């Protein structure tokens, strides 16, 4: 139901244009919109590199994400929506840190260099300690808040305090000998009704 409009349009198109035989036609894989997106991505300033499970992301210093509010004026040039989050081009570049403005979280954004997808850094970090007993100590060492530990997954989710550079703390965690793996949480694909 989440793609209801697309389905309707495509269904109508199929009813109108589907050939009796299988056509050797293929939708232009990159049309005008895709070219526009490529140009948009090319125009964005690149920041720090962040490693997430072997995939390289680049911080986009001038892109931020906030909760979409109906009727509210866009805080800048809208680039993309991810569910209830809207990504926009801010007036000035900033660090990869979550901030709060007018009581709302303002998230930094990243670019997946493998796929070209934009992502949102939530300020959380997914960490696998070598020993779960070190979870609290790891939080203390890196100035993090422990949100929840999952012993059955050998995983702890931490939160960076507002204003803390997520790229820095992620790199520091990855270098911590008590840590098996660590990466920042990135919302890249929103799960939608299917």
């Amino acid at each position, binding site marked *: 139901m989440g793609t209801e409009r697309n*389905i309707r349009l495509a269904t109508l198109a199929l009813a109108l244009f589907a050939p009796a035989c299988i056509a050797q036609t*293929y939708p232009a*894989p*990159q049309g005008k919109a*895709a070219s526009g997106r490529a140009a948009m991505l090319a125009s964005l300033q690149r920041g720090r590199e962040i490693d997430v499970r072997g995939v390289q992301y680049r911080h986009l210093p001038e892109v931020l994400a906030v909760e979409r509010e109906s009727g509210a004026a866009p805080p800048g040039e809208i680039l993309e929506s991810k*569910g209830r989050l809207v990504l926009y081009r801010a007036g000035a570049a900033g660090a990869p840190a979550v901030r709060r403005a007018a009581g709302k979280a303002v998230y930094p954004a990243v670019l997946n260099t493998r796929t070209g997808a934009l992502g949102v850094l939530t300020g959380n970090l997914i960490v696998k300690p070598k020993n779960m007993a070190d979870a609290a100590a790891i939080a203390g060492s890196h100035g993090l808040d422990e949100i929840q530990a999952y012993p059955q997954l050998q*995983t702890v*989710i931490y939160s960076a305090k507002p204003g803390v550079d997520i790229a820095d703390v992620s790199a520091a965690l990855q270098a911590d000998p008590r840590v098996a793996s660590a990466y920042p949480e990135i919302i890249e694909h929103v799960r939608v009704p299917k």
Partner: protein
Amino acid sequence: MTGLAGTGLVLFNSGSILPVAANGSFAFATPLAAGASYNVLVFSQPVGLVQTCSVTNGSGTVSANVTTVSVACVTGFSVGAASDPLAAQQWHLKNTGQTAFADVGGTAGMDIDVDPAFAQGFSGSGIPVAVVDTGLEIAHEDLAANVIPGGSFNFNNGSTDPTNTVDTTGDHGTSVAGLIAMARNVVGGLGVAPNAKLKGFNFLSMTAQTEQAFLNSLGASAANPSSQNVFIFNQSFGIDTNTPELVDPTEESQYLSGVTSLRGAKGALYVKAAGNGFLAVGAIDCTGTGLSCENANFDPANTLPYQIVVGAVNAGGIKASYSTAGSAIWVSAPGGEFGENASVSGATGVLVQPAMVTTDQSGCARGLSRTGVNTSVFNNGGAPNTSCNYTNRMNGTSSATPVTVGVIALMLEANPALGWRDVKHILASTARQIDPARAPVTLTLAKTVPSTNNPYVAEPGWITNAAGFRFHDWYGLGMVDAGAAVNMAKSYTLGQLGTFTSTGFIASAALNLSIPDQSATGASSTLSVPAAPVHAVEAVQLRVNITHPAVGELGIELISPSGTRSVLKNILDGYADSADLANQVFLSNAFYGENPAGTWTIKVVDGFDFDTSNGMLVNWAIRIYGH
């Protein structure tokens, strides 16, 4: 007492209550004096198996021991005799060719065959189900009786009420929940498991969908939300993507943990929507190719063997127009089309074919059914939906998923000892082949050089594998059959699947094989799978590294040692001109039950020539799950 099969029957007489647990004679503990009157009533009906017990010769005056009072219990119910006024239009339960308030009727008999399960009294009684979705209207008139008090969770405010107050055009989760467990009563319709118990976790409505909320919705949490006591997780969601994505290892670990540790270590059931992207996905529209634009394997969560991935079928008994195809589908189930009325919306074609009749946000101010929505008379608040508490326009693999969840709830009631793999096995063994004459999609991959012209079966249609299981990328192992599944569950021999294990990834060396443009010959390679530890396949994962500037052109297939061919990724799909497949994992269920020992062959075909250079199969690996 005769016919008693359930538990919890209690009789009442003159201030005394008498629990009755078995057939035969019964006696109240407190004797009545001669001349006293007696009046035996049913104080509470049996729970568990749905039964109705009635008293004959229940009243009179005592003169001696009374031996003429009899109680007879009758098991079961049926869709046709249900008091729920909308049940007669719920074609997925019993398809009589009804229109479901759309314009065009379906095909009689194309349903999930649930009456044989209902007739035995199975109703999903007490089976806890989590609807991980946009919300759940816990006070809805046809859901409230089945909502677990305090069992739901709202991630946006921390309460246990996930009623959706944000969306005004329908709450997806409420409509999903109705298909599982609309109660047996005198309002609305009937769930597939009308006594299953519901929890709603509104993960999809979060502003920022965090990993913590995802894990906690799917069994990782004992509180806020309480998901560790859930038996079945309904996942009517997925991602829209035009680029290859890899599974999140933490999420994979959670699914593994869920099937390993939940439900008393018998394993929770994770049921997931295949997707609605047959015609278009994300920015890509594939209309006219005849092949699925989105592949069920696009969502990396669907490539895990712990899932039951579900495709959608319409009331005519064929794939719903939108239903994403792919080898990762396990079974299919009714999901419907669009349920409109031409007189209201002006629509034609599949848009006026039956969708699903289910619960909707209450009232005519919001919901799929609301004043002025103009999709159908029913959705506009016309009779018999003047309350607008129901809709006839729910559809999608989002609908096929809860229908399957309901069937599993019936199975678990029939045999609570079933493990998660037993449930998958029973669904596979009892699924019904539909659309049997569906022809394969064969294309001629014609380059300008005649010698490379050759036909290519891009979509194989129905196959029968060496273990005797039929499989189709549209339908998986077939459409769920509730009656057959419950009957098999009842007599199922536990332990027959042995211990779940895997071969681990068996990898090729570096190959760097060129993939010729628009040639059915493609690039091929083989790998050998040993005779142990897996003797019977439960799922096959394929991992590939392929360089290509437009991987949407590529078709990827596996051929088993028994000669079974499965297309894990069809050509001309919605990956379009996304470049390269790097450690990309695909899953196929087409080999279910086969002996995997021997030589497996991968073939990669380039189905078009938008690119200017040939791609390359760099290397590949295969992992067999099974026993």
